[in-house]
């Protein structure tokens, strides 16, 4: 087992355990913290994939923004969700069955895919540079359109979020 593999397995275990804890922890706040840990683990996986830009962006976007938003929401809605009592639906057994079925289905479907055994070739230096990705993003013949559409989506989400969460004054509708 090479050091890389060792490192990968540790990270994977951390991710999976913390993700599982996210699901089954009773206290919402702790759940959110486990969630943050899982996200950081994913960032490490990105770094292992030699995508350092995405690793950093993962930390920036998920930990810096989304996780904080979630923690905020958890704190703001604490009154409605007491941490006592069951935190899962009554139908959790059926859900578990469905998930297991999905797992089995996926396993059966992709078991004999020839891509699975691929090993990476060493990344050439010029592809390591994120400048290339940046140029691709603004090239009208490549990804400029998706890029712009995404930015509009973000803008719409911004406006929508502000509008939805805006507290209207009583009697002013």
């Amino acid at each position, binding site marked *: 087992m090479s050091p890389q593999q060792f490192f990968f397995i540790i990270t994977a275990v951390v991710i999976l355990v913390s993700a599982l804890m996210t699901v089954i922890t009773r206290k919402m706040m702790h759940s959110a913290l486990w969630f943050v840990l899982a996200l950081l683990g994913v960032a490490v996986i990105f770094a292992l994939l030699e995508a350092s830009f995405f690793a950093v962006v993962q930390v920036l976007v998920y930990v810096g923004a989304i996780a904080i938003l979630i923690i905020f929401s958890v704190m703001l809605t604490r009154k409605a969700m007491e941490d006592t009592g069951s935190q899962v639906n009554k139908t959790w057994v059926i859900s578990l069955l469905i998930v297991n*079925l999905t797992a089995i289905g996926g396993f*059966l479907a992709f078991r004999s895919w020839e891509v699975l055994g691929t090993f990476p070739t060493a990344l050439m230096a010029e592809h390591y540079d994120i400048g290339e990705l940046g140029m691709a993003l603004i090239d*009208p013949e490549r990804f400029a359109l998706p890029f712009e559409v995404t930015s509009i989506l973000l803008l719409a989400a911004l406006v929508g979020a502000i509008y939805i969460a805006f507290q209207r004054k009583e009697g002013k509708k």
Partner: protein
Amino acid sequence: MNTFNYPLIIWLLPVPPLLAFALIVLLINKSKKASHWTALGGAGLSFIGAMVVFIKAIGTSALAKNPIGSSLNWLPTGNTWLKIGTAVDPLSAITLFFVAWTILMIFIYSVGYHNYGQPKGDNDHPGLPPQGAVISEHGHSHRVPSIEPMYSRFFALISLFAFAMYMLVVSDNLLTLYIGWEVMGLCSYLLIGFWYAKDSVRKAAVKAFITTRIGDVFMLLGIAGLYSITGTLNFHEIFSNPLIMKGLTETISPVFGLSWAGLIGLLVFIGTVGKSAQFPLHVWLPDAMEGPTPVSAMIHAATMVSAGVYLSLRFFPLISAGWQPGEALTPTMTVVAVIGAFTALFAASIAIAQNDIKRVLAYSTISQLGYMVAAIGIGAYTAAAFHLFTHAFFKALLFLGSGSVIHGMEHGSLHIGEHIDAQDMRNMGGLGKKMPVTFWTFVVGGLALSGFPLITAGFWSKDEILSGAFNSAHMAIFVVLAISALLTAIYTARQLTMVFLSVPRTESASHASENKTVMTVPLAVLAFFAICAGWVGIPQEFPLLGKISSGWLQGFLDSMLPFKGEAAGHSLIPLMTSLGVSLGGLLIGWLIYRRYKEANQVDPLRLGLGPVYSLLQNKYWIDEFYSLAFIRPAYWFAEKVSYEFIDKKLIDGILHGIARIGLWLGKILRFGLDLPVVNGAGDGIATGTKKSGKLFSRLQNGKVQHYMGLAVLLLVITGMIVIYLAAAF
């Protein structure tokens, strides 16, 4: 310094005025000061950029072959891209030069014209010219001009106007050029209708918009035709590709037996006719005088009408396709030349009998544009461009000067409380002493307009057109143009005499005063160009002076032509003619009008010409003719035929008939078919649906996770079946 990113600067040229427009409209329109500084800043930035580009352009060799500029992909059209881009070649370079100067001067002048720094008027409303304000000083009150109520709006719109013109000039393709062209149409509508509360202003705005639109439709047809044939809209690609040009020249179009080049050239030329106010579509331009004077200057000198001639010059290779110097004119060129020459004479003759100071200039503009168009028609490309160049300066000067005169007159009439038409020349007189700067600059502009020999710019360019006509042996055109030059000199002299010389004919005129520096400095700058702009284009064949001249402009512009420029020898006859008509006309005009001293005196020319004079004064009844021939019939048709006959009788009658038949049919169907058969089945289906709906609605419980689970389950089962089937077969 030579490492400036020139293509980028060219791209950025139109941007500052557009930004200024957006800023003023969206953010800072509350502050008048900020508005005009923003507009001036935008115009100034563009001006600096234009000068940088111009200097680079005149220093570049073989500019016509390799214009400075760049293009980028805009719209995918199948396998190719519709490209847009910017380019500066010799024609755009000199256009850029005069456009930048005149626009900047007009912007500066506007600050003064709209009475910045004056108090707010007591009765001023947005949409009406300022009425003046009463201020009290040292115990007694008097009226002074008041600031324009829609001051910021004016600067916003005029910035947009400047943006459109810059965009049009730097375009290297018809698409962006057309965008600029149409934005200009919109701006002219908005600005001519700036004082929209007046009825006549609204009519003038609509008239300008619709009349130019007629030309634009034909132009769009031409553009579409060009694109469908050549597959590109880039000028350089079309005009410098011999294969395309040859194909265009030799293929015969289905219309009038013209070649495709000739047909497209003609269609585009109709666009010019609309924009540059040539004969059948000229009617909008005199009415456009209802707008504020800086707008008139903007439309007449810097932007709109220049754009028309600029377009024709751009399309000169198409208009003149298949023609070589010295040969007979092609049909398209003949049309162009005839329309131009006729307009020149026709408008000049009207100008003689007008009394409104701005209308005289308006007709003068039409006439001068006719000159340029005629020059294009006879193939004198350089001469036309040269006249466009000089005309922009002296016509801007004349308009701003007339605005200054009007402003001075309004000041006077406000001061003494007299209600007169401040634009009527009969009410003026003797203003030369009251307004010296305006007077001398106006004289410079007037002399340039009438082609005063040797020193003024107008002489050189006009002389070049005349000699072009003479040398290429189009005697009819030459004579017509010479006569209109004579008329030009006469009405210029008439205007100068009536406005500035003699004695004041009204109280207001005697109390008129010179305007502020912010208005007179642009006049002085433009006067400088009105004299000097001609010196770059003194032909080398000219006696005496030709020796010391380099003929730079001719060389610069000739490189644009597909063939060698007309190198015919310089003859003395056109020179003598232009000397004669200019000096003679000025003299005649002065002699006739120097005794005109009373406002209610009959115009001396009326005595001499009689009924012809009223024909001229009423502009040959063209407006009335249009009203009788097109507008009234259109109204009549709309009301009597379309509304009363077709709509009310024909269509309504048919509809009522159908309705009755439908009603009758409906009754039969209801009692024969609907009640027994359809209802029975329908009720059965409804009951069945209701019952099954109740059954299924249990699934629809509004719980998100429930749905999600079902969806995933279904997905997995379907996926498994598909994979199983795929593996089995």
